[in-house]
């Protein structure tokens, strides 16, 4: 069972949350809050009751017990865009609000979570399994319909397609990410086609312009500041890059992640 409640406007949200938790035997409690001043007492009460708590923006998720999905699918072994297509086919036949359990390998994790969120579904939980694969629980949502309202651009999606073959563009990719952060814009980097060459372990260490630091130092800097660097799964595979020789901190993703970013109204793409 999934119970979704709002505690917005309540002075003692933990009282309501405790009452609701007392009556739940299993499932997930999803709580929409006003922010940190409500999240802290909720986390405290849930921890006191020995429940696992996750916080994402202003939403608190409390894992009370097992959640039964109405359908399940295993996409381990499938490569981009296979997993999202297989999962979308199943979701298409399900009712809004129904739960789907997905077993996926690490390669498909970002595509599935980002891609499914992008088309209006809700990711309820992601759990790493003992065999290194992941169990993703998704709640089918309504299709997203964007209204005509104006949106503030607060993210940039920096796409590099040239990689180590064009050092200037490679430097620009990571410098722009740094500048964007200083301008309060959230950057995300996506390496595709020849750009994927930057993702091979040690490659950025070989790039050094006489007046600039090593490219690998810029990469470290943006990774340390929390910037996500995705590498196109097919472009990586094309160049023999896999989890074993992938640069630390880089994540393999695919077309669903790429299109999800491009379709966000608050994101501007930068092609390099």
């Amino acid at each position: 069972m999934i119970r979704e409640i709002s505690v917005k406007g309540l002075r003692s949200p933990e009282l309501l949350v405790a009452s609701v938790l007392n009556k739940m035997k299993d499932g997930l409690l999803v709580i929409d809050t006003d922010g940190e001043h409500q999240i802290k007492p909720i986390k405290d009460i849930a921890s006191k009751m020995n429940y696992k708590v996750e916080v994402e923006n202003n939403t608190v998720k409390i894992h009370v017990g097992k959640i039964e999905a109405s359908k399940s699918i295993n996409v381990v072994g499938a490569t981009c865009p296979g997993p999202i297509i297989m999962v979308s086919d199943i979701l298409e036949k399900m009712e809004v609000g129904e739960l789907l359990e997905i077993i996926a390998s690490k390669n498909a994790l970002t595509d599935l979570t980002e891609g499914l969120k992008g088309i209006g579904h809700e990711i309820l939980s992601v759990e790493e399994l003992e065999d290194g694969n992941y169990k993703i629980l998704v709640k089918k949502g309504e299709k997203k319909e964007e209204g005509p309202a104006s949106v503030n651009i607060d993210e940039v999606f920096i796409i590099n397609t040239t990689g180590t073959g064009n050092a200037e563009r490679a430097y620009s990719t990571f410098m722009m990410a740094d500048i964007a952060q200083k301008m309060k814009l959230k950057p995300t980097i996506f390496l595709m086609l020849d750009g994927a060459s930057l993702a091979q372990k040690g490659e950025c260490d070989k790039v050094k312009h006489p007046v600039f630091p090593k490219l690998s130092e810029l990469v470290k800097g943006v990774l340390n500041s929390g910037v996500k660097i995705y590498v196109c799964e097919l472009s990586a595979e094309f160049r023999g890059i896999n989890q074993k020789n992938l640069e630390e901190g880089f994540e393999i993703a695919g077309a669903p992640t790429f299109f999800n970013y491009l379709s966000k109204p608050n994101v501007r793409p930068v092609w390099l």
Partner: protein
Amino acid sequence: MDIKELGKKLEELLELEYPAVGVKLAKSEDEVPKEYEELEEPIRHCEMIQIARKEGKKFYAPLDKHSCKGGAYAIGILQNPPEPLATGKLYYKLGNFETEEGAVKTVEAIPKVKEKIYASVYAPLSDTDFDPDSIMVISSPKKGLRLVQALLYKEGGRFQADFAGIQSLCADAVAAVKVRGVANATLGCNGSRKYAHIDDGEMVFAFPSSDLENIVKALEHFKEIWG
């Protein structure tokens, strides 16, 4: 003990003038008890509660029988409300709030049933033929006090009610109880006081059917010790 018997006990133990009312939100026609008739003319959800309570009628109301869009929206029957209602700006225009921001903030926080509901179903609890999503007791604060004591008797804790003076018998007393699975209380709203004639001396308590048996047991205990 079945729900009708528990409903009768509740009525007797609280010495209610009118019965408690059971409300179910049916997701499809199949979930409406067969012998229940559709309401003939559109009225407000809060008025429907009073018909079940004061006239003892059992019936259901799909979207076209709900004349209050705010009520129908709160309980999931109306899915695409007019913009001023969905955003809360309506309540600014009605004079409930000093600013539009205050109205929007309030409406954002109002409990709401998100899933699509086909019809709301009503019956006096002592004659109900379904498992209610919310059981509503409209009574004096003194009887409400006993009800809250009964709610807390088994496991203790504190009773917390939240309401905003708008969308009361719909959002506070049905949506909040169904969505959260716990009891709530409300002082009503302009609509329920004016059109559904909730008396000045009355307030509204609502709880899920899973609380009913414990409430009745606690009220029996209180009757024994306090008379």
